[in-house]
C-alpha cells in the first residue's frame, strides 16, 4: 500500500520540526512493529489484571485465599469485599468507636459468626450505605451491632464526610472495575500481600482489623491534651421545628429504615458513651446541655418505634464516663470498655425501652446539669 503523503507547509515556522529525514523503512516493518506493540501491551494488561483479580487484596471478586496472608488495613477499600465474600451472620459496624470490638468475643457471646466493618470518621449515611449493601450480598444476617455517635445526629442525612470514595468497588458494574484492576496503588497493595505471605507472616484477623486499643495512652492528662477548654457560651434555645425535622430525617433514613425492612434481624444500637470532658466541652461550655437531653429524647423515641432494634445507652454509666483512665480523648474509649459494652448489651444492661427512657433522660439531665465541671480542671 502506498504511503499517503502528508500535506505540509514547511515554510511555516510552526512546522520547523517536520523536515524529518525519511528512512528507508518499509510499511510492512511498521505494520509488524504496531502488531507486536499492541500484542505486548494487551498481554501486559492481561497479566496485571489477572494478578490483581487472583490475589484480590480488597476481596472484590472472591474471599481470602488460604495461601495468602492478607493485611486488613483499609476500611473504605476492604469493607465492601468483606461483606460480599466473607462467611458471617453478625456485623459490627460504626465509626472508630467500634474498631476495638473483638469479633471472636462476639461469636462466643452472641453465638454467631461475626465480621467487623468499622469506618473511621464515617457519618450515619456512610455506615448505613455499607449495611444496605451487606444485606444485599448476604440476606442471612442475624445480628447487627452498631454504635451511634452523638455528634452525628446533627449532620444532614445525606452527608458523607469524604470525597473520592472507591465507589467502583461498591457496585457490580464490571466496566468501572478499571479503577481497581488498573491502579498502581492496588498493584502495590497486592505486592505487599504477596511479600507478607512469602516472608511467612500471618494474615490479619477480624480481631486485629484496625484494632487500636494498645496504640495510645489513656488518662486525664492525655484527654486534656487533645483540646483547649472553650469559653462559656450562653445557653441556646430549644430544638427548633426545622432542626427536629432534620434530625428525624437523619434517623429515619440512616438508622431505622434498614431494621424496618429486615424484621427478622436484631439490631443492637448503642449511643456512644462520651467522656465527662466531652459533656463539658460539647454540652456544658457550648450552652447545649439542654439541647443534648432534648436531642436524646427525640431520637430515642423515634428509634424505639422499630421493634427489632434493641437500643442501649451508657451515658448513665457515670462510673465509666467519669473515669478518664478509659479515654484517650473526648470520645474514644479503650478496648476494655468495648469489651464491657458487648457483654452488657447481651445481658440487656443499659437497655432503653418505652417504659424506662423518660427516667433515663431525667437521670442524665440531673447528673450532667448539676455536675461540677470546673472540678475536672483543678
Amino acid at each position: 500500500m502506498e504511503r499517503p503523503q502528508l500535506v505540509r507547509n514547511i515554510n511555516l515556522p510552526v512546522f520547523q520540526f517536520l523536515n524529518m529525514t525519511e528512512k528507508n523503512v518499509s510499511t510492512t516493518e511498521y505494520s509488524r512493529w504496531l502488531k507486536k506493540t499492541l500484542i505486548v501491551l494487551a498481554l501486559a494488561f492481561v497479566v496485571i489484571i489477572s494478578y490483581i483479580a487472583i490475589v484480590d487484596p480488597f476481596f472484590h471478586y472472591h474471599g481470602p485465599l488460604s495461601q495468602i496472608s492478607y493485611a486488613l488495613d483499609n476500611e473504605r477499600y476492604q469493607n465492601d469485599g468483606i461483606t460480599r465474600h466473607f462467611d458471617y451472620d453478625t456485623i459490627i459496624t460504626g465509626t472508630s468507636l467500634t474498631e476495638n470490638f473483638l469479633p471472636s468475643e462476639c461469636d462466643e457471646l452472641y453465638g454467631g459468626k461475626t465480621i467487623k466493618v468499622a469506618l473511621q470518621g464515617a457519618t450515619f449515611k456512610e455506615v448505613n450505605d455499607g449495611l444496605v449493601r451487606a444485606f444485599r450480598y448476604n440476606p442471612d444476617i442475624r445480628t447487627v451491632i452498631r454504635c451511634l455517635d452523638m455528634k452525628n445526629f446533627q449532620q444532614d442525612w445525606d452527608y458523607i464526610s469524604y470525597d473520592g470514595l472507591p465507589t467502583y468497588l461498591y457496585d457490580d458494574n464490571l466496566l468501572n472495575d478499571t479503577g481497581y484492576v488498573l491502579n498502581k496503588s492496588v498493584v502495590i497493595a497486592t505486592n505487599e500481600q504477596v511479600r507478607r505471605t512469602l516472608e511467612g507472616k500471618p494474615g490479619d484477623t477480624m480481631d486485629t482489623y484496625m484494632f487500636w486499643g494498645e496504640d495510645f495512652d489513656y488518662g486525664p492528662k492525655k484527654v486534656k491534651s487533645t483540646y483547649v477548654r472553650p469559653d462559656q457560651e450562653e445557653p441556646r434555645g430549644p430544638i427548633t421545628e426545622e432542626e427536629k425535622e432534620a434530625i428525624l430525617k437523619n434517623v429515619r433514613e440512616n438508622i431505622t429504615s434498614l431494621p424496618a425492612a429486615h424484621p427478622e434481624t436484631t439490631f443492637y444500637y448503642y449511643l456512644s458513651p462520651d467522656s465527662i470532658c466531652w459533656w463539658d466541652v460539647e454540652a456544658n461550655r457550648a450552652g447545649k446541655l439542654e439541647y443534648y437531653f432534648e436531642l436524646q429524647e427525640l431520637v430515642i423515641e423515634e428509634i424505639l418505634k422499630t421493634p427489632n432494634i434493641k437500643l442501649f445507652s451508657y451515658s448513665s454509666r457515670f462510673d465509666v464516663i467519669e473515669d478518664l483512665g478509659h479515654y484517650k480523648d473526648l470520645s474514644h474509649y479503650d478496648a476494655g470498655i468495648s469489651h464491657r459494652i458487648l457483654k452488657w448489651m447481651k445481658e440487656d444492661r443499659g437497655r432503653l425501652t418505652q417504659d424506662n427512657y423518660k427516667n433515663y433522660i431525667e437521670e442524665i439531665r440531673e447528673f450532667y446539669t448539676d455536675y461540677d465541671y470546673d472540678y475536672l480542671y483543678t
Partner: protein
Amino acid sequence: MDRAARLGLFLMSIWFYGYLNPSYIPVILVSIGVNFLISKNFDSPKKSQTETKDQRGTSKNRILLALGLGFNLGLLFYFKYYDFFISNINTVFKTDFNLLHIALPLGISFFTFQQVSFCIDSYRGEIGEYSLLDYCVFVAFFPQLVAGPIVLHEEILPQLKEESNHRLNPKNISIGLHAFALGLAKKVIIADTLGVPVTLAFGGVEVLTSSDVLLTTLCYCLQLYFDFSGYCDMAYGIAMMFNIEIPANFNSPYKADSIPEFWKRWHITLTRFLRKYVYFPLGGNRRGPIRTYINIFIVFLLSGIWHGANWTFILWGVMHGFAQMIGRLIDKPWKKVPKPIRWAITFSFVAVAFLIFRADSVAQAYIMLRKVVKLENFSVTPLLLTGLMLPEVKHLFDLFGMASVLDSLTWLCPALFLLVVMGITLFTKNTREKEFKPDMAHLLSTVVLIVWSVLSLSGISTFLYFNF
C-alpha cells in the same frame, strides 16, 4: 464512503466534546453553524469591485466580517469574561449586578480563535471551496479541539480532503502511538505528580516558608510545562494516527535564553495567531519603533486576557509585554552576556510570571513573592516533599529493603525527581524531533509508558481522620 468517514469523525469528536458535559454541545454546534454561514456568504475577491488589498472588502463583506467577529468575541465574552467584567464593575461602582456563574464550555477559547482566523481568511478571500462537513471536522477534530493547537485552515483542511489520508497508515499509527505514550506519561506521571505540592501550597500560602514558595514555583513551572507538552504530544500522536499532522505548539521553551526567544517556543500557535490577526493588522513594525512597541504590548496584553478572566492573567500578560519590549531594546548587549546568566535571568522571570499566572488572586501572588523577598525561613515543609514522592519509587525501595534510606533522606527522591524532570526540559529533544524507528526499544518504551500511565490514572485516596 469518504463522506461517511468524515461524518463519523465529526460525530465522534462531538461525542468526545460532550462526554464530560453534554450541555455545551449546542454551543459548539451553533458556533460552527453561524461561522460557516458567515464565511460562505463573503463575496469572493473576483466578484468584488476592487481587488487592491486595502479595499478588498465590499460593504457587504465588511458587515459580514463585523458580524463574524462580533459573534465569536461576543460568545467568548459571554461565557468567559462576563462575570469577571461585572464583578469588577460591581467593585468599582459599588453596584450589585447579578453574576451568571456559568461553567466555561470546554475549549471555547481555542475553537473560537480557530474560527475567527477562518472568518478573517474568508473575508480576505484566502479560503478555497469547503463543504459544511469539511468545516465541521476542521473545527471539531477531537485531538486539538479542547486545548489546541490553534490550527489554520490551510494546514488541516487539505489534509482532511486528501484521499490517500483516508486509509490506515501503519507508519503514522506507529509514530502516533509512540508520541501518545510519551505525552500521556508526561501528563499523568510527571505533571500530575508535580501538581500535588502545587495544589497543597496554593491551598494555604500563609503558612509557606521562603523555600516552600521557591519549591512551589519551580514545581508549577515544571507542572505547566509537562501538562502542556504532554497534551501537545498526545494531540499530535492521535492526529497522526488519523494521518493528520497538526502544527507544533511547543518547542522546549525552557531552553530559551531571552523572553522573545521564549515566545518563539511557548504556545507557538497562539503567538502566531496574535501576530497574524492582531500585530500585523495593527501595522506590525512598519509604523516606527514606538508603534511597534505599542503593538507588541497589545499582543501580550491580549494573550494574558485570553488565558483567563482574572487580573493575575492580565498582569502576567503585561509583564511579558514589557519583557518582550525590553528584550527587543537590549537585543545586542544581551547577546554579550554569558549564556548561563541569560538563561538564568530568563527562566527566573518566566517562573515569577507563572507564579502570578497560577495564583488565585494578585493578592495571593503578592503574599508569596513577599515571602521570597523576606528570606526569613529556609526550611521546607515536609508535606510538600512527600507529594513529590512517587508511591512506586517508595515501594521499590521498600521491596529491596532500603526503606530506611528514604526515611532518613526524605529529600532524596523529590530532589532526584526534580533534577530528572528539569533535565528533560533542558537537554532532551522534542517528541517530534526524535527519530522514530520500529524497533524493540521503541516497542518497550511505548508499552511501559502506556501501562505505567494507565495504572497511575487511579490511585487509592487516603482518608485522613483528623479527629482520631
